[in-house]
Structures are given as C-alpha cells and as structure tokens.
C-alpha cells in the first residue's frame, strides 16, 4: 500500500505543510520588519564626517592622543563628529552602541546646526558597572525620519578588549 487518501502519513504531511505556511508568514514578517527599519532610501552625497575615536577624560571633557580602533575596558573614549558638512534640512543624532546593542552614549536628535557645539560624543560605562563591556562598539551618525533612524550617514566600529 502506498500513501493514499486515507494514509495517516498524508495527515502528517498536511500538518507539516500547515506549519510551513505559518513559517512563511513568520519569515515574511521578518522581511517586512527589516524593510521597515532599513528602508531602501538614502540621501545621495550626504555623509557625516566622523573625525575619529580618541581617549577621553570625563573630568575635563576633552579627548587626547591618536585616533584609535582598540581600547581597554578601563579606558574612556569618545568619538568626534564634524557636523559642518551636513545640510540643515535633516534631523540627525550620533549614537554609541555597545556589543549588546545597548545605547551607551548619544547626542541629538537635532539639526546639524543645533548640534554644532556637541562634537565630542563619549561612550559611557553602563550604570552599575565599573568598566566598559568588551566587544565591538558601533558609533553611528544617523538620519532620522519621523523620529526613527532610517540611514547611517557616518560610522565607526571600535573594539573594547577583554
């Protein structure tokens, strides 16, 4: 007897197909989420200049030393942004994300003109901790649309070593 109309394996097969249809809905929702938060729009020619990432002194609120890509956990660091090249018609913010994608520092949102005095953006140690969490930190200058980040105009990635 091969699998026929009354074959219980066919019932299993149909159940699996129903699961498969549900799976396609989930994956479609994932694609929709991706497109919503990562729209296929861009501002041609608009780039924010991230001057660099430097050691930072919280007391004096000044950076020092060379532009670096690696920091120790007990070192403080900050990015410097040059807002001058950006058009005034857009809303932007600069954000530090730690290796768990938590926001650990930001300036904005506002127009580039409003943010022109806030060129130093430090990454803060999370509350309750003594040191930075290790891993890859992303510094992103984002363009906002209706309060939502839709485009990264400038980016730096640094490693905080263990």
């Amino acid at each position, binding site marked *: 007897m091969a699998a026929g109309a009354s074959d219980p394996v066919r019932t299993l097969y149909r159940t699996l197909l129903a699961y498969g249809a549900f799976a396609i809905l*989930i994956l479609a929702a994932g694609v929709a989420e991706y497109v919503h938060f990562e729209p296929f729009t861009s501002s041609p020619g608009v780039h924010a200049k991230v001057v660099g990432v430097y050691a930072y002194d919280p007391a004096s609120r000044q950076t020092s030393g060379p532009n670096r890509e690696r920091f120790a956990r007990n070192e403080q660091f900050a990015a410097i942004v040059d807002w001058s090249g950006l058009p005034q018609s857009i809303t932007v913010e600069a954000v530090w*994300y730690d290796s768990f994608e938590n926001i650990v520092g930001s300036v904005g949102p506002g127009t580039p003109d409003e943010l022109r005095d806030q060129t130093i953006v430090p990454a803060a140690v999370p509350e309750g901790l003594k040191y930075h969490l290790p891993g890859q930190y992303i510094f*992103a200058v984002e363009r906002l649309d209706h309060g939502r980040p839709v485009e990264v105009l400038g980016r730096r990635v640094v490693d905080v070593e263990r």
Partner: protein
Amino acid sequence: MSAYTLRTAANPRPRNRPARYTIAAVIGAVVILIIAGNSLLDYVFIDTIPARATLYGLVAVALIALGTYIQERALNRDPITRRRHLIRAGVLLGLAAMLWLLLSDLFLFAQAAGPVVAAVCALACVPTTAFGLWVVRRIDRNEKEPWRLVLVAAAWGAVVATSLVIWAETFWDTIAANTLVPGPGLDASNAFSAGLFEELGKGAAVVLLFLVMRNEFDDVVDGIVYGAAVGLGFNFMESITYMTNLYSIFSPEGSGGIAAGFQWYARQVLGLFMGHATYTALVGAGIGIARQLPSRRQKVIAIIAGFLVAIAAHFSWDAWLTFFPIETSLFGLVEVHLRTVVMTGPFTAGVIVLLAMGLRNESRALYAQLRKEAAVGAGAVLPAEVDILASPWRRFGERLRALDKGGFGAYVRLARLQTAQLDLAMERWHRERREIDTPLEAEQELRGEILTLRRRAAF
C-alpha cells in the same frame, strides 16, 4: 550470512547500493571542504595564537576523510571484517571529533575565561545534556534508536555544525554591522543569518542519517529523535561558549559566576528542549515524514517545509527577543520563563503534536503487522504475543517477569527477542508501503534469527 547475527534494523542494507549514497557522499565532501576552508580562514584572518592553532582543523579533516573511507570499505565486507573496519573508522572519527572539540570550540571560543572555567562550564552542561538525550531516545517507545547513532547526531551538533557556521555567520554579521542601522533591522538581519546557517548546519546531520542509515530511520518519530539529538549537541557547545563569554565579561565586575550560572539555567534547563532541540527536531520531522511519502516531489517539499519551520522558529527567537525585555526586579525571573514559553513554546508544541501523531501511526501499523505475522504461522510472532508486543508497558512487564525467573541474562535475551520481533513488524510495514529497497529474503533471514533468539530466550 552467519547462523546468528543479531539484526537490529527494520530495513537491512540493500545489496546494490542505492543512489542516495552518492548524494550523501557529495554532502559529506561539501561539509569537509567547508570545515577545511574554515580552518584556513581562522589561520589567515584571526590574529591570535589559539586561532592559528586551528590549523589542526586540517588534521581533523584528514582523520574524518580517512575514517569515512574505511567506513565505506566496511560496507562491502563480511560481518567480522566489517566490524573491524567499523571499529577503526569509529576510532578515527572519534579522534577527529575530540581534536575538534578540545582545540577548536573549547580552546578558541572559551579562551577568554581560561581553561579551568571552560572545563567547569562543560562539566556543568554534561548531566543536563545527557538527560536530554536520554529523554529524547526514550520517547521512541516502539523502536529505540541505537545509542551510537544518537551520540553521533549529538556530536555532529556540538562539533561539526558549530564549526560549519562560524565563518558564514561572522561574514554576514560583520557586513551587517558595517552597513545597517543598528536596531531592529540589524537584529532581523542577524536573526536571518543565525536561523539560516545554523539550521542548515545542524540539519545536514539529519539529512546524512536519512541517506546513509535508512535502516535506522523509519518515520517521523525517528526524524524527531535524531533532530533533537543534533540540537542538544549544538546547545551543549553553545551553552559553554555563552557561559565562558559572559563569565569573562562580568568577572571583573565580580558577577562572572552569576552571569555564567544564569546562562546555564537559561540554556541547559529552561531552554534544553525549547531551543535548538525543538528547531532541529522540526528539520528531523520533515525528513522523517519524507521517508514515508510516495513521490519524490512530496519528499522534497516535506524536507524543505521542515527546514523552513526550523529556520522560522529560530529566526523568531533571535529577532524578536528584544520585544520581550526582562526587568531587573524579582519579577524578571518570572518574565524569563514566560518569554521562553511564549516565544518557543508553540514550536515545541508543534513538535509534540507531530510526535504524538507519528507514535500513534507507528503503534497502529506495528499492531496490524504483528497480527499479520502471527497469522502466517511462521513462529516468529505467536498470536498470544501480539497484544504484549504492541504495548511498551506490557513488553516491559514481560521482561520484568523474565528478570524475576531467569535473572538479568533472561531479561536481556527477551529484550533482544522483542526488539527483533518489532524490527520484523517494522520491516513488513515498510514493505507493505513500498518504502523498502531490500530483497524479500532479508525478511526471511530476520524470521530465522527471531526463532534462534526465541530458543535462547526460553526460560
């Protein structure tokens, strides 16, 4: 064929090797190429001494290749020579696996916390994973899969699947981190990466078992067992990686042990069955259902559907985890459990539904075949044994009676007889459904063996 060879398979190996072995060889070759490529990439791009040590991976690949070759040779030998070749192949494959395990995963991934912490984390995960494998094997109440295959499946999940996905996920995630807007879009991208690559890496093991060990892969129940075993193995290695990673992150803050302990609980207790075990069981369910479908088209659709469901289940957890934030208060402990149940529970329930349907089908089919076999009057199954053999509890009761009357030896002999009788019923079921590519005489040989076992089991 020797007069007494215990046949544990429902579907003995065919005399002419089917085309599925060629497919399996191609998949195996691809896996070996990816593993070798991973080792070279580790060596070239990761600028640490442990990473450079991953060149050992090529040695492991050589051992795997040699072991596979010897295993292949064993297929055409007489039983004694075959056994010798299989042992040699097993030793070589075991060595390769151990090399991988010790030097790649534990050393490379767990180096941050140091070898002692890595060893403690690994030891903490052994009892829970062993319990998981024991439960998974027990659920196949009619015909338990051999431990060697269940352990091979778990080892694949722990060692091979983790190694297969490293670079694919690393490349994807690095590109995403450098191009996408951090936030839900990036989360979704990384979740697609994890769901796709990890389920393909784990699922390859179940596909290979389906292709090569067809005689031990009967239906959806077996698929779920092997799939869950692969998932438990993967979860074992991932648990160690996360525990050591979080330990190294939080130990300077004085809370490394708590962070590692929480990971252990989340992955080895709460998520033991509701995580990778569920995802890969869904892959296995698709392959198990394909095993019994008549047309090639339906088989392919069933296998793809199984993979799709597994990828979607994995994706939904990784992508939408942040939508269920956990408070830092005591209520957070409740939330952790609720989150797992709400997000993964439905998929685990889906596996349980397929398992229950599969077990019911299997039980009914075996009962019908046992009755037919008893009616033949060949003596392999007696009419009075049918109801006993059809019930796991009554089979167990009979074995206890044997234990009471004849000791442990009698228990074991009766267990072997019952296993062989159920194998015969399974063989008949597959033959009736035209799902078998062995000659009819194999079934007759099995009857002869049952009669021999019956004489030995007499008490």
